[in-house]
């Protein structure tokens, strides 16, 4: 049975709309109530006008005007439903991608452990070492997935805070690149760094900018071809500093170009090239750069190259 509290909650439009996390004018319940009120007003006013003036032209005009308003609101209701449906589709897709990305390393660890535990194949010391290294990488992969999810949650919070300070973007990039040396060597990638002389320091949240640089380098290594050259350029542009990362990789098709910074987006051609990741990196990067007052964008040729850049 419905308790009073439940009935009250059902009538509480703000609470109903909050659950969808959309604005009032995108909330179906609110729009339905507005529509209902308008219908009542239209019936009453038509009635009054017809009684008072009995002029069919005026009443027809009023009816037409209100019909037009109802039509616009009806359209808003439909499109808000579409948005909610799209969100729910994105969410279930996201759950499926995340579980795949967590299960793969998890299975790998489980099966490697089975091999070691059962002493299946009289592992040599070298084979044991390899198995342990694979498990080590797998656990890192799982942690990255979780970190990305938490980072998204954080940048979306209203209380997301940046702690800006003055620092050298070139020094920070140099430090970041040191961590990618091994990974680059592994797939034969050469990383070239070009830094313009006399760059001014930038004023931004150093840790957050480091995250952005890491995402861009990570992507360049993931989506690039083996034995490619990744080029990192830092230069002055107006009052800001611009950092760009270019790779020679799968590129981005025109069809996908508009969606690349969206949440949970993994380009259609990425599924074909089977790349790890859950499609949050560029979304996080854009949130950080835009909230720091910078710009982020890219240019790309499919199957050739991509250049991602930001200014700060």
């Amino acid at each position, binding site marked *: 049975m419905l308790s009073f509290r439940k009935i009250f909650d059902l009538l509480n439009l703000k609470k109903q709309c909050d659950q969808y996390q959309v604005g009032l004018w995108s909330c179906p319940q609110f729009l339905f109530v507005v529509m209902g009120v308008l219908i009542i007003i239209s019936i009453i006013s038509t009635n009054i006008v017809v009684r008072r003036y009995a002029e069919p032209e005026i009443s027809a005009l009023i009816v037409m005007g209100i019909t037009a308003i109802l039509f616009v609101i009806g359209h808003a209701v439909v499109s808000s439903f579409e948005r909610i449906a799209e969100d729910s589709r994105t969410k279930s*897709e996201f759950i499926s991608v995340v*579980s795949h990305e967590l299960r793969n390393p998890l299975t790998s660890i*489980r099966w490697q452990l089975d091999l070691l535990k059962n002493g299946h194949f009289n592992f040599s010391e070298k084979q044991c070492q390899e198995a342990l290294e*694979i498990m080590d990488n797998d656990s890192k992969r799982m942690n990255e997935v979780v970190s990305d999810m938490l980072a998204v949650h954080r940048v979306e919070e209203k209380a997301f805070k940046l702690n800006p300070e003055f620092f050298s973007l070139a020094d920070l990039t140099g430090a970041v690149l040191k961590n990618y040396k091994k990974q680059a060597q592994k797939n034969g990638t050469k990383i070239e760094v070009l830094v313009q002389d006399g760059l001014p320091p930038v004023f931004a949240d150093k840790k957050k900018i480091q995250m952005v640089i890491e995402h861009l380098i990570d992507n360049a290594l993931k989506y690039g071809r083996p034995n490619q050259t990744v080029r990192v350029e830092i230069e002055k542009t107006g009052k800001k500093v611009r950092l760009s990362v270019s790779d020679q990789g799968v590129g981005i098709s025109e069809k996908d170009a508009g969606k690349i910074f969206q949440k949970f987006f993994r380009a259609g051609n990425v*599924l074909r090239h089977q790349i790890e990741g859950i499609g949050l990196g560029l979304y996080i990067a854009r949130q950080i750069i835009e909230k720091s007052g910078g710009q982020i964008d890219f240019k790309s040729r499919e199957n050739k190259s991509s250049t991602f850049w930001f200014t700060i």
Partner: protein
Amino acid sequence: MDIINKEKKYKILFVEDEPSFQEIFKSALEKNNRYRVIQAFDGEEGFKRAREEKPDLILLDLVLPKKSGFEVLKDLKEDKDLSAIPVVVLTNLESGGDIEKTTSLGAKAYLIKADYSLDEITSRIEKIIKDCIPE
């Protein structure tokens, strides 16, 4: 009665892009000398190897480079020389309609890798071989 012919060595094609899974499976299935595992690392190679080798069973991942597992499965079932080969989907993908989709395309079974230990998964595969391959 054990209907697996002890003399015959069954050929299993494993289409999987993750090298560590490939190696683990090869070692686990070949240890009793009853199976020979043929490896393919992407969808296109998987279909090509199926044509060349005519394996007794195909183990197919779904998220693959070049051609997805769904496409490979469809191509296999449309090819009259290959359509009779039983295909087992072996993946970690599990969204809404995936299981129904592969079953309607003709897959024999849908196994989630993470649900099984190595011993469990190899005995599942052995059972499927017993059930669907005539002596």
